[in-house]
């Protein structure tokens, strides 16, 4: 095979610390290399044309590009060699940027290392074989996990685009965090007024099937053909019959149930509909608090229900759905702030979270929109807001900035003044993060028009003094310690990955970062893709986000799905395992270890043999490293290809 080698300067990114010309020169000495050169920007149009030209001129059988990471441009260059009539797999990359030029300044060592990597690539290339992908049919339905604003956006966009959508929501209503908000920044328009209609659209859209109070149990298959096992948790209410009239709620005698929707501000009934605008507007029983389910007594709801939909025997139900793509929009949860002993660690009732405050502000909330101290129901006068609780704090393992707390705190300060004109708000902050259209103007208004007192500094402790809370913080601009007698303290608690996010990631086979947020395909260029084909991200599951960005991602994810489904067939990745039938002795070790059950037993002249099902094989290669006689080989990563790399690097 005649090989061409192209060593990229990547402007100065590589050239600055690697002598690319020397690398090219060295490459010319490698066996099989018929042409080698260094180029300014290999990925640019002229750069690619140069490759095409060289292939034609020197009739090259394979190409090596030494530049950035293959995770960046392997696809690009495969298309390039294809344009020149080569099979896309007769191409190899040497990563001399991320793995060389960017991690050290020693030009000699870098050049030398680059030469090694190029040698390795050429050696592998000589063992490459043309591979051809197969086409397979796809199921043009999409699963949306999570019914928050991001999920809703993605679902509606897909549905309007003509796709069948299956939405799975963990709680008994969609709406997510946004549904709990009173108003939204920076426009201060009513959250439920703008979200409500979208929720109704989801309920009414002919293309959308909604499974509320359900969770993902199992995910199998691959892009185009996923098989999803959904667990419908027992609600003890037959939702086909329930009309959401709410009589059961009025009559239910156990009124001490935790009110999750209201963030524990106030209590609710054992059988409940989270809030008036809930979608679906159906009742469910919280088994922990229902005396019928715990003690076997009561049964009031069954008696009063006009449609007779109560069923205390109800069990969890499992449903299988087939889809071709998945949008994950599982959102975030609030950081457990009780680790802050200095803020009372949860012992002081009048220290609450921002989300709890939202429920208090909301007219549909437990206090009917009146701001009251949880301890004694009194109207607070001095309200202290503390920012960065569980954000930008290494000591609690949350070094990142949640990003939207500054804004919602400003909003809450403004709303507080509207609700209680006599009140005075204080905000302890470190920096104000107000990037975004009209955002900074908004925080300025909080100070200029609403006279919110912004104090730059963290709070070191809160402790009760009489019926007030003494908040002791710093004003670093004054350079002194300050104290505020507060009636109510609201903590701007930061966001963390949703509970169970990592478990779901394992089912989806996508990766997540140290904090449990899902990893996008590429930080810049693949913001809503993941490294698993057919799985996309929307909203805060990828990292803390405010409403506009979540919605934007929801639409972006939908666009990706619609794009994927614009074809009737997908091409399978030919980097899969094949069995050399004469080498196989039918011991079945590969079958035992394949994570996908992609290898089955067949018979050949009365002898047992292994056989790979190409569309199911994902190309991990466990079988190849398991088979003692090397009968099953993962194409493009065969034993010989890897051995040739080893030999290229370690020449005795």
């Amino acid at each position, binding site marked *: 095979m005649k090989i061409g080698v192209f060593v990229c300067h990547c402007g100065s990114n590589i050239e600055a610390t690697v002598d690319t010309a020397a690398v090219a020169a060295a490459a010319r000495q490698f066996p099989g290399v018929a042409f080698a050169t260094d180029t300014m920007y290999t990925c640019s149009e002229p750069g690619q044309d140069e490759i095409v030209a060289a292939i034609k001129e020197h009739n090259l059988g394979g190409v090596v590009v030494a530049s950035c990471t293959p995770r960046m441009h392997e696809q690009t260059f495969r298309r390039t060699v294809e344009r020149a009539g080569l099979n896309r797999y007769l191409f190899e990359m040497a990563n001399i940027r991320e793995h060389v030029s960017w991690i050290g300044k020693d030009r000699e060592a870098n050049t030398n290392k680059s030469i090694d990597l190029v040698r390795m690539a050429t050696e592998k290339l000589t063992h490459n074989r043309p591979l051809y992908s197969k086409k397979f049919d796809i199921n043009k339905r999409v699963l949306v996990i999570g019914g928050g604003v991001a999920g809703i956006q993605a679902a509606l966009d897909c549905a309007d685009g003509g796709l069948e959508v299956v939405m799975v929501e963990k709680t008994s209503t969609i709406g997510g965090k946004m549904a709990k908000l009173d108003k939204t920044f920076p426009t201060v328009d009513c959250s439920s007024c703008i979200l409500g209609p979208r929720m109704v659209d989801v309920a009414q859209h002919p293309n959308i099937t909604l499974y509320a109070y359900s969770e993902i149990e199992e995910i199998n298959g691959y892009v185009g053909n996923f098989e999803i096992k959904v667990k419908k948790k027992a609600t003890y209410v037959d939702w086909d019959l329930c009309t959401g009239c709410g009589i059961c709620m009025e009559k239910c005698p156990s009124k001490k149930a935790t009110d999750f929707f209201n963030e524990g501000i106030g209590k609710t009934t054992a059988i409940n509909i989270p809030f008036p605008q809930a979608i679906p507007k159906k009742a469910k029983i919280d088994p922990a608090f229902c005396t019928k389910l715990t003690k076997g007594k009561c049964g009031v709801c069954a008696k009063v229900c006009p449609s007779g939909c109560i069923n205390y025997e109800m069990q969890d139900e499992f449903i299988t759905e087939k889809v071709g793509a998945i949008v994950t929009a599982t959102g975030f949860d609030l950081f457990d702030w009780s680790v802050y002993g200095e803020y009372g660690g949860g012992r002081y009732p009048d220290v609450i979270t921002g989300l709890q405050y939202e429920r208090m502000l909301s007219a549909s909330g437990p206090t009917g929109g009146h701001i009251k101290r949880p301890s004694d129901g009194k109207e607070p006068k001095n309200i202290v807001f503390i920012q960065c609780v569980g954000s930008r704090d290494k000591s609690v393992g949350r070094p990142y900035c949640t990003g939207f707390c500054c804004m919602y705190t400003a909003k809450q300060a403004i709303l507080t003044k509207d609700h209680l004109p006599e009140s005075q708000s204080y905000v302890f902050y470190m920096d104000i993060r107000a990037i975004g259209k009209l955002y900074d103007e908004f925080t300025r208004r909080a100070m200029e028009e609403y006279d919110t007192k912004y104090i730059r500094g963290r709070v070191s402790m809160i402790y009760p003094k009489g019926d007030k809370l003494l908040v002791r913080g710093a004003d670093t601009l004054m350079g002194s310690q300050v104290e505020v007698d507060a009636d109510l303290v609201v903590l701007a608690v930061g966001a963390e990955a949703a509970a169970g996010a990592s478990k779901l990631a394992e089912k989806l086979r996508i990766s997540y970062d140290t904090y449990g947020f899902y990893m996008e395909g590429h930080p810049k260029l693949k913001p809503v893709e993941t490294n698993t084909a057919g799985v996309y991200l929307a909203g805060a599951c990828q990292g803390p986000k405010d409403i506009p960005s979540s919605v934007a991602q929801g639409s972006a994810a939908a666009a990706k799905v619609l794009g994927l489904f614009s074809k009737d067939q997908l091409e399978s990745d030919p980097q899969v395992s094949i069995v*050399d039938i004469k080498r196989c002795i039918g011991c079945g070790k590969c079958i035992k270890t394949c994570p996908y059950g992609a290898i089955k037993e067949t018979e050949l002249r009365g002898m047992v043999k292994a056989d790979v099902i190409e569309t199911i094989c994902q190309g991990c290669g466990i079988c190849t490293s398991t088979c003692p*006689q090397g009968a099953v080989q993962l194409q493009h990563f065969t034993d010989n290809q890897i051995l040739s790399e080893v030999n290229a690097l370690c020449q005795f």
Partner: protein
Amino acid sequence: MKFQEELKKCISDVMPELDVVIGWCASFDPLHATPHFMRRKEDIDKLEISPLSVHNLATYLPGLRGKKVGIVVKGCDSRSVVELLQENLIDRKDVTIFGFPCTGVVDQSKIKKALGHTGNVESCEMSDTALVIKMDDKTQTLAMAEMLADKCSSCRYPDAVISDYFAGEKIGNKGEKDVDYAAVEAFEKLSVPERFGYWLKELDRCIRCYACRNACPLCVCRDHCAAESRDPHWLSQENNVRDKLMFQVIHAYHLAGRCTECGECQRACPVDIPVLMFKQKMNQEIREIFQYEAGVDPEATPPLLSFKMEEENITEKVW
């Protein structure tokens, strides 16, 4: 051997249903036995079981797949049969296993050492305690205990672990406890370069005849052994010590969790390279990390073909 007649009896009883029964019989001189394939009743009379019945006959089974085969097994041989069953390389219904209480077999190299040479042995009388060998018209008596193969002196499975017919009184298997790795541990006392040098010296003798592989009952790749293949191309065909050593590692790793330490590889080696030690080391690790011993349970899944989410005995490096 007292149970020999009993054994012959039950072989002849079942012979009609079998295509062949494999055992041992006398060989070119009184000091050697050789594998014996019995197809007719009269063949059975030649069957001889003695401390000379060294060969692990399980090696022949995969090759005879599809035929009805009877096989006479020592305790250690039977564990190879178990492995072959576990890897469904033979079918239980086609194999009839004859067990007997094995008191150990000799190590020819030890005898050779004791006698100087074993050129023209005239006779060899064996008792439980001694070998009486007549050669060059003088008689020499060797203590049986000293002539036994190492694996026998520390044998934990004298009786077949699996059998359809068992002749004689069972001695009693000790099972998986107190395994003796003294040899390995002693070797590991050597310094790093000493160990490295040792293997180079030993493997230098290797003539790449692959007798070790051919004798191994679990080297089932047969014509497609990595040693002589170009795809995958693990080894060159040159006469160099690197490839010779590499082959032994490949053999050992491919046997990880499968090897029963029958010792055939080492016995078969014409130039006496202690290749068994590689497998013993591998087994020691398998045992310590996964509490697993090959060749005991046909239903078991070997450790390298399975995993646990949390591995109790694996502590990973912290950086």
